[in-house]
């Protein structure tokens, strides 16, 4: 699916009438440079600037000739020139200043005001890296929680219901709707007979038409191993993944990086070690990570 189509789909489906009104109001106000109220910038970036920067770089005070209270002003930069280099977070002065150590002379916010949290600098970095657009909608995993909640978890499962029983039979797993809401997705459930599920089964499910519907893969105590992780990366809407007590190791975890919506990952009782850390950092939406009973947990303070 082309990216533009995807975005159009997202915009049509994601935002309730109230958000659509906001969008219309923004357009009427004629602030074209601000982009739509539903852009990544408006939803995630400007709120951070408003909270931490605008009191000294806004209408009240304009330190260093820099204002950060609108996209146009941010784009214009200050006395020292541009503060954002689209696509290059490492060359963007804005990001450099807010990620300095607390005791550095140049750190922002200055004067001992609270510094930005890593999640906030992460948002800035990813937005700049993606091109620092005023208009682009937030990619998956980057929406603020309220908007994320409005987005369907998966495509409508109703057209698949007549085939579910046959698919279950074929794969030897259960495919259970999360709820009666047809866009809540399916659970891949194996608890009745986990030993029947191995890498080959998972590869076949990943290659099937049902893969985009699966939001929750319950694979604890199955026989899946590192070879299954590339297959798991083909479940684009996967939000929860339970690999507890499987043979998975750190080696293949990088293969999970495409899972932009993965919120919860259970690796308890696996053999993952400290090298898993960097690989897991690539998961943008991850909120819950469980590593009890692994060499990684044993190595942590």
């Amino acid at each position, binding site marked *: 699916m082309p990216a533009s189509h995807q975005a159009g789909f997202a915009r049509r489906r994601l935002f309730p009438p109230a958000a659509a009104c906001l969008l219309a109001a923004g357009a009427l106000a004629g602030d074209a440079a601000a982009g739509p109220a539903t852009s990544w910038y408006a939803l995630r970036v400007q709120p951070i600037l408003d909270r931490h920067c605008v009191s000294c770089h806004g209408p009240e005070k304009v330190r260093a000739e820099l204002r950060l209270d609108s996209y146009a002003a941010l784009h214009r930069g200050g006395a020292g020139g541009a503060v954002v280099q689209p696509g290059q977070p490492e060359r963007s002065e804005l990001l450099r200043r807010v990620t300095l150590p607390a005791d550095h002379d140049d750190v922002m916010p200055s004067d001992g005001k609270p510094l930005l949290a890593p999640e906030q600098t992460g948002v800035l970095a990813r937005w700049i890296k993606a091109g620092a657009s005023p208009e682009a909608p937030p990619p998956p995993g980057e929406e603020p929680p309220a908007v994320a909640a409005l987005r369907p978890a998966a495509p409508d499962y109703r057209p698949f219901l007549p085939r579910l029983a046959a698919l279950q039979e074929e794969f030897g797993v259960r495919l259970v709707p999360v709820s009666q*809401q047809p866009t809540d997705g399916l659970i891949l459930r194996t608890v009745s007979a986990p030993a029947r599920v191995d890498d080959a089964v998972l590869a076949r499910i990943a290659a099937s038409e049902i893969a985009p519907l699966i939001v929750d893969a319950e694979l604890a105590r199955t026989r899946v191993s590192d070879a299954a992780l590339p297959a798991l990366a083909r479940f684009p809407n996967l939000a929860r993944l339970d690999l507890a007590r499987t043979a998975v190791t750190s080696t293949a975890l990088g293969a999970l990086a495409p899972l932009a919506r993965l919120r919860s990952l259970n690796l308890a009782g696996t053999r993952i070690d400290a090298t898993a850390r960097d690989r897991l950092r690539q998961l943008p939406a991850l909120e819950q990570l469980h590593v009890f009973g692994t060499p990684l947990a044993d190595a942590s303070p």
Partner: protein
Amino acid sequence: MPDFPLDSRHVVTIPAGGSREYFDLQTRRQFFGRMAGGLGGAALTALAGNSLLGAFSRARAEGLLPPGSERLPHFAPKAKRAIYLFMGGAPSQIDLFDYKPQIADRFDQDLPPSILGTGQRNASNIRQPRLAVVPSPYRFQQHGKCGTWVSELLPWTAKMVDDIALIKSLQTDILNHNSAVTLILTGNAVAGKASIGAWVSYGLGRANENLPTFVVLVSKAPTPNGEGVQAVFPNFWGSGFLPATNSGVVLRSEGDPVLYLKDPRGLSRDARRAMLDGVQAMNAEAYEEIGDPAIHARIEEYEMAFRMQATVPELTDLSDETAETFALYGPDARTPGTFAHNCLMARRMAERGVRFTQVFARGWDSHRSLPKNLPLLAKDIDQPSYALVTDLKRRGLLEDTLVVWGGEFGRTVYSEGALKRDDFGRDHHGKCFTMWLAGGGIKPGIVHGETDDFSFNSIRDIAHVRDLNATILQQLGLDHNRLTFKFEGLDQKLTGTAPAKVITGLLA
């Protein structure tokens, strides 16, 4: 977990289903089929309609949905399962959680009439000449980042206050044990309605095809001579009007975990299978002919029992638990029948997809000798409750497991019977009592609701036990107003006919 592929030879083919609607449709289909030949299918489609729910009914009726999704949550659930630690006999909120320093100097003073009000009549305030206040003799301290006050009797629970939500403003209508337990667990004080575990089982269906959806574990009381112990009755976990497969299955701590499950000595599994196949074939024939739901239920139960013959021994065999895990649950954890052992069992149920596990603790009915017995009771449940929450949390299970702790009502601030510094009792109390919830989308580290200075009346965010039940269902993805079953001319529901509301203040 043992794996036994369901060999097609061994499976009697029956359509997925088991729900009342299914059978209604099925009966209609037979009717149309017999009366009008090929018209039946068209009529069925017309009946089911094109709505979303129609799509479900249709898929169910056609056998397209897998077993276990006969029913689905109304909306995406926060919790896939629940563990309910039930403190039978009613724990004293004022000595455990509801800290009242305001009355520390009121020992043996009369309860002010303004506090007593007129609402509650229990044995002591009918019979006793006076109602003498007993401040809790136990020290309270603030714990955790949230600073929740907890009594010295619960040092382990105190360690997890940042993981749990206390609710102090619960109320119930009933002050006798059996009826009050029946009320909180079935939504009605009169026995015979479906229990909360049965409703959850019915509403969510089976996650593990080889284990019951609802398991009950009854613990031994830690008090001497059965003091403070109240009976537990099977209606506390009964299925009432719901299909019997939703009833709680009691796992016993001595002898066979499930009565009559084991084959007689000398009977091989193959012989049992062959016998079952014969019976099931006859049952299937009878079901084809007359479509009686009871036959369908019987077929399902025989098959479930056969599968449980293989799964229950593994479930109850704790030999794969580490010494560290046993140590977490405490010294009693190795002794079957203790609350500690049952909490460890409850975690194993959660791992294996049991939807609802209810652990009964007993002995909390502290009419007399509270200073002697309450420390024993608290000690009995304290470390295991902490261990369960902690163990679920570290294994990644707490995020989708709801844990509930509490009893059928609270206890009075005034003494029942003679009052001495070191010996007194507390009577039943329904106007305020404390429970806690954890995991499964519950907001951690909070205290919800408030009581007056005497822990006598709920004064803020008052919640009825119906509201608690609505909240438990909500976290499991079930709307208590929509989870209904037609019986005796009424759409029965767990929360009954009186209004109930989800306690939103408890939700994350």
